[in-house]
């Protein structure tokens, strides 16, 4: 979904409930910040959950960090899927399950803001209850394998293929 005010992807979904009917806003980070800061008393009283959330994230990103530090943070990349934190911030979508580990320091406060909690309570899958992290590494191995093939390093590609198959065949391990 695109931002209602520009061509960037909308990463903030705000429900305004101040008027007669709820109004949904879909905005990119820049326009969300603009919308939330210029809105004054009328919007502040909205106490919209989503608006508050977007506001918190905007603050969380801005507080106590210099532009340089922010830029550095943005460059951090996930070793498994390769997305940077900046990619996540601009799209609002993560690239692979390992991002939750790779960006743990940044995502922690965000999850707390969104959910008010930081630990899962509830259903646990019967398969891989201790985490499926090992299988997620297959994403990285596949990437490395296609790179190896492209560079004609076939010995390495074969090793990687065997490694992938070992993990894939390990089933519920």
């Amino acid at each position, binding site marked *: 979904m695109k931002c209602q005010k520009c061509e960037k992807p909308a990463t903030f979904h705000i429900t305004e409930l101040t008027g007669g009917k709820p109004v*949904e806003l879909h905005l990119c980070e820049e326009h969300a910040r603009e919308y939330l800061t210029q809105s004054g008393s009328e919007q502040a009283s909205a106490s919209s*959950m989503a608006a508050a959330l977007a506001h918190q994230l905007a603050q969380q990103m801005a507080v106590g960090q210099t532009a340089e530090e922010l830029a550095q943070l943005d460059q951090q990349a996930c070793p498994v899927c*390769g997305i940077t934190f900046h990619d996540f911030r601009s799209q609002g979508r993560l690239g*692979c399950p390992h991002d*939750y580990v790779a960006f743990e320091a940044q995502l922690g406060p965000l999850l707390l803001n969104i*959910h008010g909690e930081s630990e*899962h309570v509830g259903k646990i899958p019967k398969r*891989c209850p201790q985490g*499926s992290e090992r299988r997620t590494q297959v*994403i990285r191995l596949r990437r490395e394998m296609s790179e190896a093939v492209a560079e004609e390093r076939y010995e390495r590609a074969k090793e990687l293929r065997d490694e992938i198959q070992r993990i894939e065949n390990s089933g519920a391990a």
Partner: protein
Amino acid sequence: MGTVELDDLARQRGEWLRGNGPEADIVISSRIRLARNLADFPFISRATEQDRARIEKALREAVLETDGVPKMLYLDVEQLGTVDRQFLVERHLISREHAESQGARAVAIDPDETLSVMINEEDHVRIQVMQSGFDLPSAWERINRVDDLIESQVTFAFHPRLGYLTACPTNVGTGMRVSVMLHLPALVLTRQIDKVFRSLQKISLAVRGLYGEGSQAMGDFYQISNQVTLGKSEEKLIKDVVDIVPQIIKYERTAREFLVKESQENLHDRVSRAYGILRTAQTISSEETMHLLSSVRMGVNLGLIEDLQIPTINELFIHTQPAHLQKISGVELDTADRNIERARYLRRQLNKEAGGPASKN
């Protein structure tokens, strides 16, 4: 092949429109969806075409070869035409995002349309169970079983501390969205609906329109759902919604009683005029139809209209949507022609139901 099966769907009434579940005069449907991802593939935004194809294949096999799930209709959404995709959105079987995105993606639908499994939506799998009336516990029982069956064949991304891992951090943990669709015309008429919304926000519940995120509250339909997914069990998330809905139902009933007592003539007039327009109009927009059907629906519930059944009205809300009209009439129509066809369809259905004088139009 998909199109023929879709034409059959167009003629049938989804289970959730039956209108006979608990509190069905106000609660249209109860819905639960679970978001899941395969552990060994990137999330959709980073998936290559090859990844998407492999995810689709793995999940197709898991869903279709699962014992205990009735024979599902499996549709390749990428291959469907625009009208067919819109038709599935109108029936709440796929999301708008799923209809409008690109690349390998699919949906599996069970014969009575209570269960749908979207593959390659925002997450690799989105399982949805939707039933008529106010009945979240049985929806949970059903979806939990389906989730178990799919999970017995694939490995979902799961983190011991964070739970089920999803493409958007707003869904992490249980990956569960619980929602109840309510028809609240009297709260709208008496201008109390804002007050209800404000109290819901305070307890972290979200309010959306008929077609979910980004849709307006057409026909006075509102969906109430949980906002958070992490740190509360599935049972607790369901309980939060289950506990609040009876209060909203009570407010709506009080508002209806107030209208009956304080302005019976006005109310009866409003309902009758709405019914009259729907039975006689020659061209009518989708918005006006929703608006008038809402009044008629309340009129039937209050006994002001006696020759019409709730399931018929529920069905008209969906069948008069743009893609449904085109599926039912069998031709593609532009907006002006749709408005004419919609009016014709309404006259035919309502005059047939009422057993009134056959329309000559």
